[in-house]
């Protein structure tokens, strides 16, 4: 090997070494950022656990709120939150999926649909209190639905609608064009194509979007406080199944209610240490509920996507 070639090779080697140093520098920086996030989260969680774990008994889940911290529980709150999520999903899923589907598969590409698209994206950024004010004016006063499960559910449903629409559109767009063409080429109509292919194949993505939306809705406090949800309640909404025909009842929809975030907020604003412990315990339960929903989302996505390879 002659000396010029040797010199060039040495140059290349020192250049590679310099590039690798920069590589390492970024890895260290990224790891530091990640550690910060993780430590913060762990600190918060441990703090809640230390404060609230002593209150996490069976009674806590089966008792109503009480003036005495030791006897207070979250029965009304978790049942309320559960019902609220049912209504929210019932509102957001059909409307959101239908809208997303229409925009992707049916709507012509013109100025009108472009404006709608921009609006939907903007709606996702509107502060939740604004939804609360809207609901107070429209659902509570104009329609006279009161501070009910229905009102709150519809409000949260509207709140997460943009999330569901965007998720629906994204997952519909992920269905390859050649699958659509394959169906069309066999003589399928647009609805047959959507019903047999687009919807089933985009279902995992849509479900994920819905659950992300619900995870957001479950922690929302501002809009439901705005519409006037009760902070102290000692009864459950009427049961949906009754002894007399037709055996189902929707009275619960119009019942007053409370929800987990409100309960937590209420307890936090009390001066007594015991109530602070209740708040921590309830917060743990709320975090648990959110994590559970996310776990379900991951599981569903895994199960449904197994056969979709493209």
């Amino acid at each position: 090997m002659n000396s010029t070639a040797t010199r060039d090779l040495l140059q290349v080697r020192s250049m590679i070494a310099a590039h690798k140093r920069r590589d390492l520098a970024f890895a260290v920086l990224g790891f530091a950022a990640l550690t910060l996030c993780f430590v913060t989260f762990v600190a918060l969680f441990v703090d809640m656990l230390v404060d609230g774990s002593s209150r996490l008994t069976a009674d806590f889940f089966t008792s109503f709120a009480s003036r005495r911290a030791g006897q207070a529980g979250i029965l009304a709150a978790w049942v309320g939150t559960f019902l609220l999520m049912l209504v929210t999903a019932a509102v957001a899923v059909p409307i959101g999926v239908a809208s997303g589907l229409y925009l992707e598969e049916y709507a012509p590409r013109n100025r009108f649909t472009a404006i709608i698209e921009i609006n939907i994206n903007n709606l996702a950024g509107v502060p939740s209190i604004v939804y609360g004010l809207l609901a107070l004016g429209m659902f509570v006063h104009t329609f006279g639905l009161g501070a009910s499960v229905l009102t709150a559910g519809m409000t949260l449903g509207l709140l997460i609608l943009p999330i569901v629409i965007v998720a629906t559109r994204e997952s519909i767009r992920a269905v390859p064009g050649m699958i659509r063409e394959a169906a069309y080429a066999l003589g399928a109509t647009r609805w047959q194509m959507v019903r047999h292919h687009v919807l089933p194949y985009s279902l995992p993505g849509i479900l994920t979007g819905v659950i992300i939306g619900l995870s957001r809705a479950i922690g929302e406090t501002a809009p439901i406080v705005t519409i006037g949800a009760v902070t102290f309640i000692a009864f459950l909404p009427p049961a949906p199944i009754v002894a007399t025909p037709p055996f189902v009842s929707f009275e619960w929809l119009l019942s007053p209610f409370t929800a987990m975030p409100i309960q937590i907020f209420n307890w936090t604003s009390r001066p007594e240490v015991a109530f602070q412990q209740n708040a921590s315990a309830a917060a743990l339960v709320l975090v648990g509920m959110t994590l559970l929903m996310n776990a379900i989302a991951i599981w569903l996505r895994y199960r449904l996507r197994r056969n979709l390879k493209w």
Partner: protein
Amino acid sequence: MASKAPKPDLATLQKKAEARALNFFYGQKQALKNITLPVFDRRVTALIGPSGCGKSTFLRCFNRMHDLYPGNRYEGEIRFFPDDLNLLGADVDPIEVRMRLAMVFQKPNPFPKSIFENVAYGLRIRGVKQRSLLMDKVEEALSSAALWNEVKDRLDEQANNLSGGQQQRLCIARALASEPEMLLFDEPTSALDPIATASIEELIHQLKDKVTILIVTHNMQQAARVSDFTAYMYLGDLIEFGWTDDVFFRPTNKQTEDYITGRFG
């Protein structure tokens, strides 16, 4: 004194379809220019030409795939025989057209469903529900596509688990199940290895007894191997059409000659 094997006079051959003065536009851009081309009944016609010559565009006119996207426009007609229907007619439903002419695509595109459901799909959308009838048709189509023996014991498995070549034969079976009058192949082997390609070519050879085939290919040797007729297209024009033997042995047009001998791309 062309090829020594006697070939029938073109005028005596039965046509399955014929493009007449066909123009096609993507928006303002004209992609096909005044194409007149016969497709003979139960023969294989290959469309060759460099990328962008309009061969796939032409193929996709036959089953009105261009109707799926806005801004496309046809002029002229494609007559379809024996009923002398204009496939491009404004009063002709593209769904009906697609039920009569099936298509096989460039990349194998099975539905992410079971093997059985893939093949049965064309029948299902035609309203066939009876399980035994579906089963018979699925077996028949898979046999015609030379796939039955390989998959008969695992019809409920996912189609995506098949190999690339098997997937493409599945797509052919899917196209065959509803007994189309004509099969459109859009570069059916471009994503396959040579062995899988050979099996698809053999299949095309067997199928031409039953169905008229129009195939786009960028592999000239493939056109030479599988087709009876070859059409050479360039920049939206039909340059030469004739018996494949003649086009590949002594083309009449210099442009065709240059293309098939590898003198320009």
